[in-house]
């Protein structure tokens, strides 16, 4: 609560067959993903923050501004909340040109339509050449970029995005994601980003809220939640962790990047990058095997010294092991038989052999 920009949400809402009940404190910077399957309440939560769910009760505070406090009978209507919202289907006004769509919110915060072309966000999102077009003539990805710019031009203190990629096909998604990443680096306001697609969340989000059946199972930095054995994130076939690393050398002969993580190193294939730059890597639990000794007689390039923190049996016949590699956590999926043969339990010193390391950004 000490951070001036913190977003405090305590909200309850019930519909027949569905109840939302969350109490969250979210960071005032970066992208927070509201993640869950459909029906988990993520979109309802986002709409309640926007003031579009009048039946929601509780308290919403963004920094020092209180938008809703049912105990005080305070409900700031949606159009008086300084927020921007990007809907799944862009929701551009079909009767207005792109320029007038962009100017819609801008005019209402005291701007003028001619500021649209000069606005940095128009350039950032690459829509300067679309200004005279009608929304109906734009591709899905272009529409979403206009929708984001339109929301940002109204100078929001908080940006809400409701699955902005869901309506796009795979190719458009791939084209669109880099725009969002660029935005992530430039934006100074916090973003709440609803998604049910983990790959997207991993690329974009800093903070993760895991929603299930209207409740928040967990809320925390992405890197901390992914390796938690008690959360469903680690239970799937594709369980993985994301590690923050620093670029070291580049081995041009083998086209490999050296990445430094907590005093240890990994080699990852990839184009050269400036030494010292931050990078995130994704390591799947099924690509990690464990060994007791630091053998160098295998084709596997990467081996990290680690300590077993916790083990969770995943019947039938398998186990997930959480490892500490000197601060960060790694997941390894083994068979129960290997676990027993190696006598692995909490505290055991092992070597994690990593078959594949993928750079995320």
């Amino acid at each position, binding site marked *: 609560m000490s951070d001036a920009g913190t977003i405090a949400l305590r909200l309850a809402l019930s519909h027949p067959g569905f109840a939302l009940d969350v109490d969250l404190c979210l960071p005032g910077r970066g992208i927070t993903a509201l993640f869950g399957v459909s029906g988990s309440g993520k979109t309802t939560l986002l709409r309640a923050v926007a003031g579009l769910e009048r039946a929601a009760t509780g308290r919403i505070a963004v920094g020092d501004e209180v938008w809703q406090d049912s105990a005080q009978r305070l409900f700031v209507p949606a159009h008086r909340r300084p927020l921007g919202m990007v809907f799944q289907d862009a929701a551009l006004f079909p009767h207005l040109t792109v320029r007038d769509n962009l100017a819609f*919110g801008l005019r209402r915060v005291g701007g003028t339509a001619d500021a649209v072309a000069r606005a940095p966000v128009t350039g950032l999102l690459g829509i300067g050449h679309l200004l005279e077009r009608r929304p109906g003539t734009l591709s899905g990805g272009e529409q979403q970029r206009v929708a984001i710019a339109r929301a940002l031009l109204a100078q929001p203190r908080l940006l809400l995005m409701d699955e902005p990629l869901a309506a796009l096909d795979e190719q458009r998604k791939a084209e669109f994601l880099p725009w969002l990443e660029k935005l992530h680096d430039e934006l100074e306001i916090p973003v709440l980003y609803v998604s049910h697609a983990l790959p997207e969340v991993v690329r974009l989000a800093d903070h993760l809220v895991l929603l299930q059946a209207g409740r928040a199972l967990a809320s925390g930095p992405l890197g901390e939640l992914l390796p938690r054995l008690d959360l469903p994130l680690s239970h799937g076939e594709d369980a993985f962790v994301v590690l923050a690393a620093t670029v070291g050398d580049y081995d041009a002969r083998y086209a490999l990047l050296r990445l430094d993580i907590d005093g240890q190193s990994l080699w990852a294939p990839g184009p050269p990058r400036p030494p010292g730059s931050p990078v995130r890597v994704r390591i799947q639990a099924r690509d990690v095997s464990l060994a007791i000794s630091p053998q160098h007689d295998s084709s596997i390039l990467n081996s990290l010294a680690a300590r077993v923190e916790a083990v969770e049996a995943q019947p039938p016949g398998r186990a997930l092991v959480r490892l500490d590699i000197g601060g960060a956590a790694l997941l390894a999926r083994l068979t129960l038989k290997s676990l027993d043969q190696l006598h692995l339990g909490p505290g055991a010193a092992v070597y994690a052999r990593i078959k594949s390391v993928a750079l995320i950004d």
Partner: protein
Amino acid sequence: MPFSDADLAAVGLTLRLAGLTTLLLLLAGTPLAWWLARTRSPLKGAVGAIVALPLVLPPTVIGFYLLVALGPNGPLGQLTTALGLGTLPFTFSGLVVASVLYSLPFVVQPLTNAFAAIPERLLEAAATLRAGPLDTFFHVAVPLARPGFLSAMVLGFAHTVGEFGVVLMIGGNIPGQTRVVSVQIYDHVEALEYAQAHWLAGGMLVFAFLVLLALYTINPPGRRGL
């Protein structure tokens, strides 16, 4: 000159009646249509049905009840008398009141359909862009409902021009006051002045065709919100 002075007076009166009726219907029908399109009130069905009544009732039924209600002993008649307006039957004002009621569905229904076709999402998007309810209504809903407004105006106007039964019952047949074109044609036919009747009736036919042609050209069926 195929039209007599009485004919021209009837045409002028008809246009004045239809214009005023359309204007009043747009003013009253727009909020009503917006409410019908957006409300979740349990009254929606009943109000919608009342609005649609003139579509199925014989004009004589509406004319009869209006005559009773607006007459000196009717509740509305007593109200207008108390307000110093006198009684409305057999006056131009009475015709306007009757026409507004009789043409109500022809304005409200296209508007309701046009408003209902606007995705809720767009209105919500406007709200998140700082537009208040009235701002959203005038800058998002009304422009998007434009085809509906066009249909409503054309149909409301044309239907008022074409009414006969209600006019005869409420307005009677007072030259310059309540004698509209449809009544004038009736008079000509009664007097066996077929040539005069032809000119007016033919004029009405051409007018109705042109109006509908314009409507279907500007607003092809399926987009009119009717």
